[in-house]
């Protein structure tokens, strides 16, 4: 029980339930299955990206460029399919391949040139995004192939949206990798302490390459989901939201210095942002207030965990001295 109380996820869950209750009392329509399913569907893109961001943060890195990667993957996959034809599988294949390659470039740059990840990925963000804009001429694709519409409307038994299932699938797959594979453990090791990880004998290059390629892969995957949600391709519709996704993951308790964080936390972080966005509108508060609320929640969250950490350190020091 005490352990539960110390977990960030616990507080988040309590906050989410409390908010949910508050919104439902104010507007009974909030807690309907229909609204919740809509929420899951419309935040599936955000949620899938958050899984990739979590993995990068766990490894002690950061990726700013994933929105540009998703943007490139989205544009290229739709444009190629419009040109040469294809189906949903082609879309996923093309988008994920592009994403993985661009992500791998990040990983190689970070590993071999030893530029801090935040700087590298700011550079590649500009590079990928700039090139996409030059090649596409900034033209919007209004007509996307029909199967995207079908994907957006598809549901599993129980009215659960397929796009939401993709999010769930990404979480489960990533959870398995993180928990049960050597690669997954090496990510935690690298995030905890790079030197220690090298001494223990982990191949840091392999881990780092995997982490950033995985982020790219996830961005490519999410790009297809985004196309299905938006039903058009606007070349500047994703770039600029990178910090929102990172904020959601950090809210979920991931340590920005690496080594700790959880998938459950990342999902709860996204859920909290989703509820604030949707709930405030449903209780009739202007959506202008969204950012104010989210900003306050982030500030309170990070402050609380910093204070908690300070107290822990102090307690440990007190225990050491006789």
């Amino acid at each position, binding site marked *: 029980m005490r352990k539960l109380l110390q977990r960030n996820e616990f507080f988040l869950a309590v906050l989410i339930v409390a908010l949910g209750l508050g919104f439902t009392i104010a507007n009974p329509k909030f807690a309907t299955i229909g609204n919740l399913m809509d929420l899951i569907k419309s935040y599936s893109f955000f949620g899938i990206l958050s899984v990739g961001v979590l993995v990068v943060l766990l490894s002690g890195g950061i990726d700013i460029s994933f929105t540009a990667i998703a943007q490139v993957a989205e544009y290229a996959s739709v444009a190629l399919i419009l040109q040469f034809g294809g189906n949903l599988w082609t879309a996923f294949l093309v988008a994920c391949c592009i994403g993985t390659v661009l992500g791998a470039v990040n990983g190689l740059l970070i590993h071999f040139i030893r530029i801090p990840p935040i700087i590298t990925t700011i550079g590649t963000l500009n590079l990928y995004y700039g090139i996409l804009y030059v090649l596409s001429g900034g033209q919007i694709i209004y007509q996307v192939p029909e199967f995207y519409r079908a994907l957006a409307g598809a549901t599993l038994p129980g009215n659960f949206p397929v796009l939401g299932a993709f999010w769930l699938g990404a979480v489960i797959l990533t959870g398995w990798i993180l928990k049960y594979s050597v690669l997954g453990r090496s990510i935690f090791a690298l995030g905890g302490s790079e030197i220690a990880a090298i001494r223990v004998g982990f191949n840091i290059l392999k881990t780092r390459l995997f982490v950033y390629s995985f982020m790219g892969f996830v961005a490519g995957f999410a790009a297809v989901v985004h196309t299905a949600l938006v039903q058009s391709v606007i070349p500047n519709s994703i770039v600029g939201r990178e910090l929102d996704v990172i904020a959601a993951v950090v809210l979920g308790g991931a340590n920005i210095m690496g080594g700790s964080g959880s998938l459950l936390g990342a999902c709860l972080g996204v859920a909290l942002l989703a509820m604030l966005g949707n709930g405030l509108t449903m209780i009739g508060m202007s959506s202008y207030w969204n950012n104010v609320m989210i*900003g306050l929640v982030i500030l309170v969250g990070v402050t609380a965990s910093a204070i908690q950490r300070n107290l822990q350190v102090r307690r440990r020091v007190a225990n050491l001295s006789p």
Partner: protein
Amino acid sequence: MRRFLNSHRELLALTVVLLVVLLVMLLLSPERFLTPNNLRSMAFQLPEIGILTLAMMVAMLHGGINLAAVGTANLTAIITVLVIHATAPMLGSEWLAVALGLGTGFAASLLVGLLSGFLVGYVGVSSILTTLGTMTLVNGVCIVITGGSTISRVPESILFIGNGVLLGIPVPLLIFLLCGAGLSLVLSRTVFGFNLYMLGTNSEATRYAGINNARTLLGVYLASSFFASIAGIIMMARFNSAKADYGQSYLLVTVLAAVLGGTSASGGYGKVIGVIFAIVMLQMLASGLNLLGVDPFFAIAMWGAILLLVMALKHFLRQRA
């Protein structure tokens, strides 16, 4: 000579890149690049992003980042214009209203700096998380108080800040140079500057040396907010309006420019002169490509490529040394 070269390698590398860019632009479009018109437009465009980069650089010197810089700039501009609109009819004097507006605008932005600095310095929240929070909050406040719309009708009397010319030099450029000189002096000649560099290099060491880290950090974010506000006022005067999402794309570009100018992302190293060089280079590249009729986004791609290239070069030079 050798010592000089070694200690100024960073600046030297930048100068070379700068000259190469200049040369390429001159070769590609000699009749358009070095014209008074182009130089003038460059001199008007560069200061706002330049001052924002100074705001970013101050925070990077301690090993942090100020993601709220652009939001703070907009907050200052919006509050300034709104206060002027609200008080001008009451006070009867436009100048008095302008002074009041600027005062409130700067006060609001310093409040943001105070919050960030307090959380980073006294509570010990990491810089990127703190400013992620203040950024979202400030952007939210900007949207709420403007209702998301553009606030126009900036009074004539302060438009010269963005568009005027003094002694043949555009006023915004003059302000940028003043800010740069001021910051450079503070960093190299004051206890605060010395503490800041030391804190960025090793915060444990400064703590044991009896330096008040928290106070230094508070100063950092106040200074960063202050520069952001100046950039905000310049943007307001240049666009003749204020809006919650002006300059949002500048945010990451300022980090890029600061790093290009030799500021270390992990703190402890960085000089104002390097940042100024980097800004001039990025602006030359953007203006030059624009003159050539190339897609403006190509310049963005080039910025990214140059950043990676410079970092790679520095890495290999360091390995050989």
